[in-house]
């Protein structure tokens, strides 16, 4: 079970969180024209990298904040966690 550092609550067990997918995906702006291709890429196309991956988790049984987690998908090592408003390099 992973041990995830919520930027608001500290280190908490994985079972308090729910996974939210790739954090680098950006939703096209509301009320703006978007091409079919860009929209489909946003909705459906995801990379599945082996190695470092920046992803979203929600501290669902805690502060309910969505957070960013940089994790190695092969080893589960977590390098960094951040608020969604912060950048992970």
């Amino acid at each position, binding site marked *: *079970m*992973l*041990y995830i550092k919520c930027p608001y609550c500290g280190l908490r*067990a994985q079972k308090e969180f*729910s996974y*939210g997918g790739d954090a680098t995906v950006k*939703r*096209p702006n*509301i*009320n*703006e024209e*978007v091409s*079919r291709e860009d*929209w489909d890429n*946003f*909705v*459906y196309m995801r990379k599945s990298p082996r190695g470092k991956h920046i992803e*979203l988790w*929600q501290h*669902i049984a805690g502060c*309910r*904040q*969505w957070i960013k987690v940089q994790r190695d998908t092969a*080893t*589960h090592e*977590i390098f960094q966690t951040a608020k*969604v*408003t912060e950048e992970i390099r």
Partner: protein
Amino acid sequence: MSQPFRLNKEGLINRNKKISFTFNGKKLFGYEGDTIASALIANGIHLVGRSFKYHRPRGFFGAGVEEPNAKFQVEFNGHSEPNVNATEMELVEGLSATSQNCWPSVNFDVGAINNFLKMFFPAGFYYKTFMWPKSFWYKIYEPFIRKAAGLGVASIEKDKERYEHKFEYCDLLVTGSGPSGLASAYAAAKNGAKVILAEDKPRFGGTLLTDDVSIDNLSGKDWAEKIITELKSMPNVTVKNRSQVFGYYDHNMLVMFERVSDHLEKKSKFTPRQRLWYIRAKETILSTGSIERPIVFGNNDTPGIFLSAAAKEYMKVYGVLVGKKPLIFTNNDSAYETALEFKKNNVEPIILDTREEHSSELVDEAKSKGIDIRFSHGVIVANGYKKVKSAKIGKLNKDKNSFEKIETIDCDCICVSGFWTPSVHLASQSGNKLKYEEKIDAFIPDKKKQHETSVGAANGSFTLEESLKHGFENGSNLSAKITETKTEISIPNVNEKKYGAHDKFWCMPLPKNENPKRFVDFQNDVSVSDIEIALREGYRSIEHVKRYTTLGMATDQGRTSNLNGLQLVSNIENKIVPEVGHTTFRPPFTPITIGTIVGREVGMEYMPTRKTPMHEWHEKNNAVFVDAGAWKRPRYYKQGSENLFEASKREAKNVRENVGICDVTTLGKIDIKGPDAAEFLNRVYTNAWMKLPVGKARYGLMLREDGIVMDDGTTTRISENHYHMTTTTAQAANVLSHLEYYLQIVWPELNVNVVSTTEQWAGAAIAGPKSRDMLSKLYPDLDVSNDALPFMGYKEAEFFGVPSRIFRISFSGELAYEINVKSDHGMFMWEKMMEVGKEFGNQPYGTEALSTLRIEMGHVAGPELDGRTIPSDVSLNGLVSKKKDFIGKNSLGREAFNVESRQKIVGLIPIDRKSSIPEGSHIVQDQNAKLPNPKLGHVSSSCWSVENNNPFSLAIMKDGKNMIGKKFFAVSPLKNKSIEVEVISSHYVDPEGKRVRS
């Protein structure tokens, strides 16, 4: 009754307390502190089981987790458990143990014929022998294998025992209380670290209990006791015996299995049987020790053959002799300690040492005590079927592959030692790639992957001095990094006997024309020839050899067999072991009970139960409940001998004719506040929200980004910047997360807050033509006329003195209202409604009637919004704004969503107007068509229309719009039904929606 193999004084058992038990029906006794194994050996019993494949007689081989043979069906404390390791299970009064894998009995086993038919059971026999004819598998092969080769019987009774889970955090977890573990724990404890020390055996000390050593002039055992006593007195230390750390998971989480009360005769009601510990450790010391490995020789599985360290442990811990004419067969010094221990107890051993004439501290001591030592010797084959009687021994030539002399000598046990294998299982589980250490012919941990440090024998250091030194150093350094305190500890003086070099010898050759079985893996009956066959047949990868031969795949995980198997493969392949590699270690290290994994999460505790504030009233009024997620909802209120169908029909009919009330507390409720709330709702919902006035509700539909309907519900504008959203019961949690996602990540510029208020409000729906009359009695001071409180209107008013919210919304399609009060007032509200409603014919109705009412109105719910439908599929395209953007809008333009023949919601009625259509039925053109019969759609919801008094269903059907008036078949192979149906509109009752506005 005497115990012929029990020593008079030696051992740590309590001779003052006799414990009686039975083995295969025979009444025996042992002492407090015995294991089943030690008690049986004390009674001279060695034949305890039959082997898995050949049903060969088997006896004890080890004294702990390494035991491959002695797995019993054990009955104690009123339950029956299979595969209990007899060398680990402590004796308790009244325990009854039975051999497994033998039929009809361990002494006479018909399966033993397999031993004489062994040409049929070579490596891969499952794959080869039972392949054909195929029809034989279920009726002949499988029952035969099951009966002849089962490993015990699982109980089918409900497990009455209590199991617990515990979550713990510590600075340092130490796994094993041998010398290096004790030293690590002690040093870390002295630095102020929070320490957990786990020992799988009942007694602490590991090899200190059996090795002839002294530390600071104390015996190993006394020193261990001193350290443990001190550790137990420290508030920052948890010391646990009977606790096996069996799994090493991500981010330094380890799982430990504690046998809390299996060894107790009596326990209090709430004492758990076993406990599972989830331990998050900042650092872990793996002081798991090592396991002796055997030397392979002919008939090396005969009862009476032991690992030499096990023989020593039986003497020193249990005061039991494994035999009185022992033959010690070794390639190293450690077995000399066993020989000396025999000698001390006036038993004369003979030592066969594969090394040429040899001298070391231990060997010299054995020589000086006059023990018969024969160098360059080994056991070729053990004689005796159910017990060792003699051994054919050979003097090896210099090539170690042929014999100078062969003779037979009498013996009643053979104690074998092929040197030591570090227990690297936990290190391997942590992700550590092991490395081969040629000095000890075994794998040891390599670079650490997590926060784990292996010390002592687990790390390949086999001297006490080194183990203690490593233990103290690592315990101190690792903990000092955490506590930032370093207490100096002087490393104690150690007195131990020095070992000479071991012989790299692991398998006895056979003389010409002799071919006894030489087992590598006892538990799975894998012999040298099986591995040879696998290699001959082309298997090369050790993982393939493992699976083909089943080497190391039994419950003992190959603890005594893995390295010998690897040696064999590398010898035949002319490779060295590191090139062959090792197979993967996986948790659990030792088998654990299913009960422990499950813990308290059974029955009532399986998941939380959510009850509405009116639950007790429902219970008192014969509600039959249905699970809605964790909620309990009344499905119907049973009157007299009514069944579900009759009751729900009565309740639904009463709503259509009079008035009914329904507990709708379980609906998800979300409070939405902030100056941008309207803009937010406008983006979340498909329809327009910017112009909803205060005091009005609106039905809303929300999509996922892929255009699929996510949820529906009403949202009411309570005040300027305050909205009250309702969701379906099932989607409440998802919708909240969904809203939070957009507010926190996508549109953080919107000044809006959302919070769940589901538990804060109790809700009741009042529905039916007489609902307004009833409402006016509930709120005598309020104008509830159609003008004052129109459809989708909202009011706040006092309900008999308590604040309440009134929403004029309807799920049933009737004139209806929903009243919310604070949860604490829920029961009061409900009882008042029941009282006031009497004169209007009010009756409570459950979810079944609720479904009936919405289905015949054509209102969609979960079964239609099933994660596959877009708004136009379920006739909700009127709610989809063309002017504004919203979540999922761009997806609605996708080609497949807009084809003419796209699926649509329709209504179905049976042609005979009688047959109910099972939900989930497939709609087909021709019920007799050849399979696969093309599916045109499926039935999503079914009811008995109380309005029209015949069955009615909703269905999602391809090209549904154009199917109205046509006839099809609804077939349900599950219910074995095929019903001819006609397609009609999904709005079966009041298609214009007049009633809700009346």
